[in-house]
């Protein structure tokens, strides 16, 4: 495995012409940027939808000028109807989970940096790589189409529980073509992700440069590799699940629909299906998906922390083994989403144990990060601040998992805002902190210009405080029993909780607005930023051994030879306190 593969030499010729260079590019770096741009577009839409939802929750009768243009029926006169709220939450969840949290930390950064970090010229299958991006883009467009069709988007949430999702338009507007588009979009998305995952795995195993043993790979490369293995198995289950759902909807099959259902006064002509089958298939994908979202960020954050601390982690190996354990255990925990679903109560106990056990590798990682900070000399910049913020957010979102892993407590907290707070913190915000950290860290490599630090740090403070203000109170609401996916809280029970809801809405609007600083910084620094040197952070891994931005074939036709473990910091090197992986100088250890 240490030998450089023959395939590595000139995977494809240099791109010529605008289309090949920037649109239908085979270059992993361009594809990585394309994924990043798609994730950015999706997160902007997803965030705008969450604004509308938060606005509607606390000011349900207030007009939002111009909103009627989005949907005449859903927002007549600019006022969101309770029904349209369900469409908003469905589209928000789907966009964020699939097109942001899967795309940005994994597909975008993974595509750009995995080949470079292992010393390869490109991915193993550049054409597959191009296909996976364009397939994902088609999936995105199909999903967005649901906003435009007359029925509007589906209303069954991002989990699309059957039989609501399976019986067709009898279940309500949006459950006709809107739901079809959802299922088609996700099926296409699965194909794109499967192609991507295969490519990542093949690249990591086959295209490593000479001397790049598996344990010499940077932690983020390991994270992308493990994530690819999870994604390969997870999307391979969601794809057939979506196909079965489409068959139930269009071909009259009954995979998820039992007999005797009367929906909208019509007796459904189905029999023999099981609604729980959908839940099992969906969560068999759905829980590993949480780790698909968070593992790459764990890798990115570890990579950046080490660089900022100027010393290695207490043990990179332990971090890698912990990520593997999390990946392995992620297959045994899906039932914790279904404690009160009517599944056999014995299964709940069985699912509870691996769910609690997965906290062990997660705690090990947290302790390694914390323990490594001891005695370091941490450089503070936008990237390292977001990496430190990630640890804080991961802990905050992680401890609430302890509650939800226990079936008895889940009886009262299931389907409340406690769950919403939990997964937004650990899967959403923590994962996005990894993306922000990665952006501030690698922007120089990707564009050849430094990102503005002042704006970056301002963005961090507003986002760090803001996200806590949004998502911590969600837990309090859940503890009172405030149920999620309800559009208006007008009754006696919810009345006293309204001040907290208003606080959350204001925090959400403010934190969302703070993201404009980030977007401005991206655009401003892209054109006006200070030109970046090759290795602005004194990093040790291969991405810092090539120009910013790298040439089309990454290493200029040369084949790097690897002499060291990835993180030779706190040593006496020729250039300072570090030795690069491809530098033949002797290592201290």
């Amino acid at each position, binding site marked *: 495995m240490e030998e450089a593969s023959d395939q590595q030499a000139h995977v494809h010729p240099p791109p010529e012409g605008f289309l090949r260079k920037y649109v239908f590019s085979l270059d992993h770096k361009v594809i990585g940027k394309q994924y990043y741009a798609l994730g950015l577009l999706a997160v902007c839409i997803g965030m705008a939808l969450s604004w509308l939802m938060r606005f509607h929750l606390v000011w349900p009768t207030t007009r939002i000028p111009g909103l009627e243009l989005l949907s005449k029926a859903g927002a007549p006169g600019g006022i969101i109807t309770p*029904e349209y709220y*369900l469409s908003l939450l469905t589209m928000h969840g789907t966009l964020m989970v699939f097109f942001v949290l899967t795309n940005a930390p994994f597909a975008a950064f993974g595509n750009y940096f995995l080949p470079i970090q292992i010393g390869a010229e490109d991915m193993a299958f550049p054409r597959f790589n191009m296909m996976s991006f364009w397939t994902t883009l088609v999936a995105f467009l199909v999903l967005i189409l649901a906003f435009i069709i007359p029925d509007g988007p589906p*209303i*069954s*949430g991002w989990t699309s*529980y*059957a039989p*609501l999702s399976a019986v067709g338009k009898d279940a309500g507007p949006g*459950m006709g073509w809107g739901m079809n588009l959802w299922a088609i979009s996700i099926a296409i998305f699965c194909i794109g992700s499967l192609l991507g995952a295969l490519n990542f795995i093949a690249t990591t195993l086959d295209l490593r440069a000479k001397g790049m043993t598996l344990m010499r790979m940077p932690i983020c490369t390991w994270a992308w590799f493990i994530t690819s293995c999870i994604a390969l198995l997870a999307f391979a289950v969601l794809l057939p699940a979506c196909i079965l759902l489409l068959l139930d909807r269009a071909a009259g099959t009954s995979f998820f*629909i039992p007999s*005797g*259902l*009367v*929906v*909208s*006064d019509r007796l459904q002509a189905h029999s023999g*299906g*099981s609604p*729980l089958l959908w839940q099992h298939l969906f969560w068999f994908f759905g829980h590993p998906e949480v780790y698909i979202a968070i593992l790459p960020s764990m890798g990115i954050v570890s990579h950046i922390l080490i660089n900022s601390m100027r*010393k290695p982690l*207490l*043990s990179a190996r*332990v971090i890698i083994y912990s990520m593997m354990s999390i990946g392995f255990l992620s297959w045994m925990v899906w039932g914790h989403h279904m404690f*009160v679903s009517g599944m056999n*109560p014995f299964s*709940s*106990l069985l699912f*509870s144990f691996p769910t*609690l056990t997965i*906290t*062990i590798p997660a705690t*090990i990682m947290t302790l390694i990060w914390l*323990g490594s*900070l*001891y005695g*370091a000399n941490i*450089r*503070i910049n936008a990237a390292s*601040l977001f990496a*430190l913020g990630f*640890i804080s957010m991961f*802990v*905050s979102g992680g*401890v609430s998992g*302890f*509650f939800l892993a*226990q079936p*008895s*407590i889940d*009886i*009262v907290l299931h*389907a409340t805002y406690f769950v919403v707070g939990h997964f937004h913190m650990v899967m959403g915000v923590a994962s996005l902190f990894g993306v922000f950290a990665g952006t501030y860290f690698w922007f120089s490599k990707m564009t050849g210009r430094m990102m503005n630090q002042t704006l970056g740090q301002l963005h961090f403070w507003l986002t760090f405080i803001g996200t*806590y203000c949004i998502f911590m109170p969600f837990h*309090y609401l859940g*503890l*009172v*029993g405030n149920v999620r*996916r*309800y559009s208006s809280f007008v*009754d006696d029970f919810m009345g006293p909780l309204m001040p907290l809801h208003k606080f959350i809405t204001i925090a959400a609007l403010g934190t969302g607005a703070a993201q404009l600083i980030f977007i401005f910084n991206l655009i401003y620094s892209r054109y006006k930023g200070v030109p970046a040197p090759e290795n602005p952070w004194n990093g040790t891994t291969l991405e810092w051994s090539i120009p910013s931005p790298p040439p089309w074939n990454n290493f200029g036709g040369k084949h790097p030879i690897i002499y060291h473990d990835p993180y030779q910091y706190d040593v006496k090197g020729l250039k300072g306190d570090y030795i690069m992986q491809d530098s033949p100088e002797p290592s201290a250890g």
Partner: protein
Amino acid sequence: MGKLFAIVLVIIALASAYPIVTHMYVMPEDVSTHGHQIDEQLSDTMAEAGISFLLAQFVLAIFVWKFAERKDGGKLKNFPGGAKIMVAGAFILVGTEILALGVFGQRAWANVYFTPPRPDALQIQAQAGQFAFYFRYPGADGKFGAIYPDKIDEGNQNYFGLDPANDIESRDDIVSAELVIPVNREIHLLMHAKDVGHSFYVRELRIQQDFVPGLDLSVHFTATKIGRYEIVCTQLCGLGHYNMKAYLNVMAQDDFEKWVKQKASEL
């Protein structure tokens, strides 16, 4: 800037813990016989999770305060004991928590799901459909009439699809939009979904259970306090989901019998 991070983090951690410590936001009072076990389990978990949360945030704050942008130029050092102590610590800390919460804490779950209802429990059938609950009492004969989905006719108030013309057992079935139960008597609630998935959630009863189409599920509970409590559907069930609520009316035994009589006389 590292010091600012530490200060902000400590403030966030303390502010996050304050509403929990002062019990600012808590579930409404428990009115069930089993709920106290869930509540105890919840507060035990809150203590353990809360301590872990505060400790981790404080340690992060302290280390960033101490070790960010050091001006002393001192040598970098490693945490005494290194990775081994972290791994051992995680196994011991979390392992104990898992044992404590996971093993000993399953009683509450077992109490709800593994003990069968008493033979003299009052059987009531709950039907969930878009977007209302209906409850059916077996009447004087103690038997529920069969359900015929094709006979469901909401316009004529035949919510369950009963066939009293041909089915004797259904003739005395009482149907109500409110779940009326006697206090201190065990209720065995048989759950039936008419169309899509729904859920039965009563905060004060510490009960939440999904209705699954095609699956016969049931829960049993005893309410210990007279009062009126909200029943909420917690499973996204379509357009009117946000309106799908009903009330649980817990009455004294005498009042309950009067209510049944009155309902029976209306048939």
